[in-house]
């Protein structure tokens, strides 16, 4: 096997040093009744047999490569520049471990320090960690962090317009704890109704999402005020960080914790993962942050360098009192996001965000002009909800046959939203694609 080097002569020489007569002898400390009774029964393929097998599996997938997708809902098709893909494949980045030995890990460390910095600049925040697993886990960790800050307060509130999958993960994380979640309803304009906050005792934190799951941009300034009036931690999350190319940064609106999914920042959709859990907060909460942090320091000669720092929050020191159990994170995805933000630059990032918004507005207007209803009045970024005529589900299936993915049906997330579909338009959809879609939907 090409991944193993030992020849029979090597094996014989090494076994002799170890003092056992064969390879089985190496396992003599394992009791008989813990052993397998039958050999491993697994297929084995050559490199090109594997290529064929994997090509067959990959062919049984819908991908953006041959479908016109108008689907977002937490996973976005953005163009990934070759420069990002190519640099990210450098094996010095790919095959390194967590940078515990800083002298030979400065590449990863400076790269992640720059990622933390660019995330802070994007979100208007003071401190960002080196990443969490994904947007869903980031929201769960944000709520747990709010509970730690709130000490004896035991309740958190979460908008029902936070991505429904994130909410499910929140439920999983909180299920075995003594903490409660209150779900906040939404208003007719497609934004969160915070009027119920006053009725909640014991409120540690409140999470809203903007743009939210219906695509709507929340009034974060008002939300922040309402939440801070209740002396609770203001958490705002996102699944589409590109929006902050043109929206006011949440940090400027007094958010305490900003977190979400960074897949849009140069990471392939890859059937939902790996993505990137982005997590940022105000400086005053830095010692409550979950996850790793890279900090700047100097070496013995006074030269600038970087290390993992504030590890007294982490489990290898604090064990059960750690701020989180996370160890491995999504480091390479954070590097990808750094490379993507660097390639776009401030100017490019802003223009790309504007283009996403403008294209989505074009489709929205065209569908409206075609007589379809846009049920929620709130401003949107690159996603919006359309109400389609009854029975559209059949046409939706038919459009799939024509290789068009016409939005994501909302009824499985909000039973009251039958015939409502969430459409997404990124820079990868042309005006012609959108015109063709409108024509099909109208037909």
């Amino acid at each position, binding site marked *: 096997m090409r*991944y193993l080097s030992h020849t029979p002569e090597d094996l014989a020489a090494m076994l002799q040093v170890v003092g056992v007569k064969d390879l089985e002898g190496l396992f003599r400390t394992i009791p008989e009744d813990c052993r397998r009774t039958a050999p491993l029964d697994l297929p084995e393929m050559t490199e090109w047999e594997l290529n064929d*097998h994997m090509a067959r599996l990959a062919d049984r997938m*819908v991908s953006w490569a041959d479908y016109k997708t108008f689907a977002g809902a937490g996973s976005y098709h953005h163009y990934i520049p070759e420069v990002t893909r190519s640099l990210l494949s450098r094996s010095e980045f790919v095959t390194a471990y967590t940078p515990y030995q800083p002298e030979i890990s400065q590449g990863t460390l400076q790269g992640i320090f720059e990622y933390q910095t660019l995330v802070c*600049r994007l979100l208007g925040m003071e401190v960002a960690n080196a990443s969490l697993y*994904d947007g869903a886990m980031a929201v769960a960790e944000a709520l747990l962090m709010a509970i730690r800050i709130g000490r004896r307060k035991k309740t958190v509130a979460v908008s029902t317009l936070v991505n429904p999958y994130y909410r499910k993960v929140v439920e999983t994380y909180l299920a075995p704890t003594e903490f409660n979640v209150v779900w906040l309803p939404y208003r007719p304009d497609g934004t969160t109704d915070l009027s119920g906050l006053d009725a909640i005792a014991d409120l540690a934190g409140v999470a809203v999402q903007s743009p939210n799951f219906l695509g709507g941009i929340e009034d974060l300034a008002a939300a922040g005020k309402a939440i801070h009036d209740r002396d609770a931690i203001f958490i705002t999350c996102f699944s589409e960080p590109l929006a902050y190319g043109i929206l006011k940064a949440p940090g400027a609106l007094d958010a305490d914790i900003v977190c979400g999914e960074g897949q849009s920042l140069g990471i392939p959709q890859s059937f939902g993962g790996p993505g990137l859990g982005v997590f940022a907060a105000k400086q005053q909460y830095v010692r409550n942050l979950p996850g790793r942090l890279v900090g700047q320091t100097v070496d013995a000669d006074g030269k600038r360098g970087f290390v993992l720092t504030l590890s007294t929050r982490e489990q290898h020191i604090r064990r059960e009192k750690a701020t989180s159990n996370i160890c491995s994170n999504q480091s390479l995805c954070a590097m990808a996001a750094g490379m993507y933000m660097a390639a776009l630059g401030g100017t490019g990032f802003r223009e790309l965000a504007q283009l996403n918004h403008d294209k989505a507005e074009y489709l929205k207007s065209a569908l409206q002009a075609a007589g379809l209803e846009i049920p929620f009045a709130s401003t949107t970024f690159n996603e919006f909800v359309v109400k389609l005529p009854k029975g559209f589900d059949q046409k939706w299936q038919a459009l799939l046959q024509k290789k068009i993915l016409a939005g994501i049906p909302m009824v499985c997330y909000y039973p009251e939203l039958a015939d409502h579909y969430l459409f997404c338009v990124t820079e990868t959809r042309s005006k012609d694609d959108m015109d063709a879609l409108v024509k099909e939907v109208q037909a």
Partner: protein
Amino acid sequence: MNESIGTRGLILNEPFLWERGRKGRSGYSLPRRDVDPAPLPEHLAGEGPDFPDLSEVEVVRHYTRLSTWNYGVDSGMYPLGSCTMKYNPKTNERQASLPGFAGAHPLVPSELCQGALQLIYELEHYLAHVAGLEAATVQPSAGAQGELTGMLIFSAYHRDRGKPRTKILIPDTAHGTNPASAALCGFKAVPVETGPDGVLLPEAVEALMDEDTAGIMVTNPNTLGLFETHIQAIAAIVHAKDGLVYADGANMNAVMGVVDFGRAGVDVLHINLHKTFSTPHGGGGPGSGPVCVGKRLAPFLPAPRVVKTGEGYLLSEDFPKSIGKLHAFYGNFGIMVRAYSYILSMGPKLKDVSQHAVLNANYIKELLKDVYHLPFDVPCMHECVFTDKFLEKHKVTTLDVAKRLIDYGFHPPTIYFPLVVHGAIMIEPTESESKETIDQFIATMRAIAQEAQEDPSLLQQAPHKPKVRRMDETAAARKPCLRG
């Protein structure tokens, strides 16, 4: 000793991204604008992020230079104990980047993602088969989330029986994520002391196990690199009080094709695809931490699960006892593709992998134990643990040895872990290294022990060759500078 691998070389300095560039440059080919501008309402509009503007060439130079400051498995031997830094096959990367996988939206109907569903289904079966358990989930994103999944299953199982429990037994050799994951589920960690031979003794467990204890978390092989020989007896004690046995499978690379965890009495086992199943560590992730369970715990696995029907594969939510979801979608799918490719490339030879990994560790142990103190001189599994006891008289520590190894071109082993061994040096060579490389590593370790006697300052000041020298970690923590 042959000539050292570590040598001098030209390393290029590189400033921060924001110290490069000029406003108005771009390294991105902006798509054509084919629609009219539609400005946002003024009260929502921001100024856009303050990122530096760089050309494509500048971005390439920047990250290429950064990459040369790193050391990876592709650079050389990386004997980091408990981390299984084996070779990451190139074909795995190719398969994960196939457009059908990399370009797949996660929310398409099942009939349009059969390839991915089949891959997940088969991978879960292969992993359960290798573990000797009944079912598996690949949803957890890393080992620590796999542990959390295991603890959520413990919690849900006891609640389902109407008897929630509050404590969990965790050996003192455990990785810190074990107690942290248990704490997230509200379990109070009760430490169990390791016996004099470095393995857990049934009497220690018997003394602590009661009907308020949810079960035990055992790393097996443990973090001293030893197989927990009493695992079956310990499982029987825990099961007798209706508790469950969790095995941390971070060290699975030692026992594939050898141990049947089901027969050993294990109820839940997590596996790290980024250790045992060859997926790259990426400088700290993304990983993947699948969880395998015995039959009675299968109903509690995270949903949705991939099921096989007459018409193909389906994502099913129909598991009322499930602990729920841990990831927005299905986990780190791109990592699953790589691990699946590895399993299909190796087949039953996964057993050879474990045999060679264990042979390499024992070989190193035998050839270093006269110069480095070996606290437990017994046959080890895939890693061996030494200490700096013999070097104390020269005022040389484990850290000094680790840093000196860097000068010779090797990545250091894991140091100061497990905590129960003072000054631990934990060496895991993996199966990937050739005999010549291992011989050179041994010769280097011996040369360093010699240097400790003759010129300890050489070690105390090490490393001498990398771009930077020892970092001031105290200053970094005292006055944190976390962004530029």
